[in-house]
């Protein structure tokens, strides 16, 4: 929702917030697409070596245990919930 103009006129903070959200979102999306495509390219089974590599990486991913990162994950979940609540708070004011 573009809310640059308020009842008090043009607001620079609102513009900055909007530009930051759009640029940050686009940058994150592009970075993620680029990273995923690189990973998919690296793991593509072209020959025997890449097939072994693919299986080995898959095996290593399957061996990851959530309990090793539970504290980090808990903090992330808490921060996400907090962020959602704050964003919703904007609409309540």
């Amino acid at each position, binding site marked *: 929702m573009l809310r640059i103009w*308020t009842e008090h006129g043009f607001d620079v903070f609102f513009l900055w917030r909007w530009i930051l959200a759009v640029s940050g979102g686009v940058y994150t999306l592009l970075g993620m697409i680029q990273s995923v495509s690189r990973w998919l390219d690296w793991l593509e089974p072209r020959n025997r070596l890449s097939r072994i590599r693919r299986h080995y990486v898959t095996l290593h991913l399957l*061996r990851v245990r959530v309990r*090793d990162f539970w504290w*980090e*994950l808990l903090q992330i979940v808490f921060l996400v919930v907090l962020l959602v609540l704050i964003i919703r708070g904007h609409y309540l004011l």
Partner: protein
Amino acid sequence: MSAEPSKKEKVEPESRLALTRQARRLGLTVRENWSDEELSKHLGARKEQIESLDWGGLMDIVSWAKHPVPTRPDKLAVAQIILAHRRGHYQGLSHRGLMALAVLRNVRFKKTDSARKVISRLRRSEGIWGYVLRKRDKWLGSMLSDLLDADPEIQGVQQTDKSSQEATLREHIEEKGLIEGLGSGLRGAADGYIHEKMEEIEARIDYKLDEIDKRLAEWRNRELTNRLRMIKITLIFSVVIALLSLLYTYVIGYL
């Protein structure tokens, strides 16, 4: 072994020399005055005699003589292996094995004979010269075995051999004579040494692979932790900016 081979080979026209060699390998005493036809006839009869032997009895001899079990059930090939072997004692050989061995060594016996009687006939068939040669090989085997056992390194290798139920040097010399027995004994010791070394190398490779795997797992966990921290930092900044924005919106609302 329940499956008995029913293959019956035909005597093909071969040269006299090849036929003689084959006949001797099958334990047939070839007489010089035999004609080619007679030789072929005797060889055919011998092959039939071997083919009629009990497969289980032949296998008993093979396991008693510590020979590797043949991959295909060829009685003639097994008979050649058994006849090349001249073990002097018969401990551990079953009754049917003794009877099959007696047939292969052309020893006459009755089907009602006890195992002890068959052994006695087999020993008698060796003759005095065979007895003397066997005793000589036994004595040489014992002497060389004692001599080599004194060396702790070789003793170690022999102990490894014993653990894998292989014949000792003394048994090799008793069965195959001095030169061939020594060769077999040394070959056995060398095989044991190589086998031991190969196992060592394999264990070392396994250990290295495990170490690489462990290091990769550690690297993966570190990398994942770093990524999660980056996400966390990004979220902290987002929350701070969102709070600022909320505060600003709140202040603007009251102005």
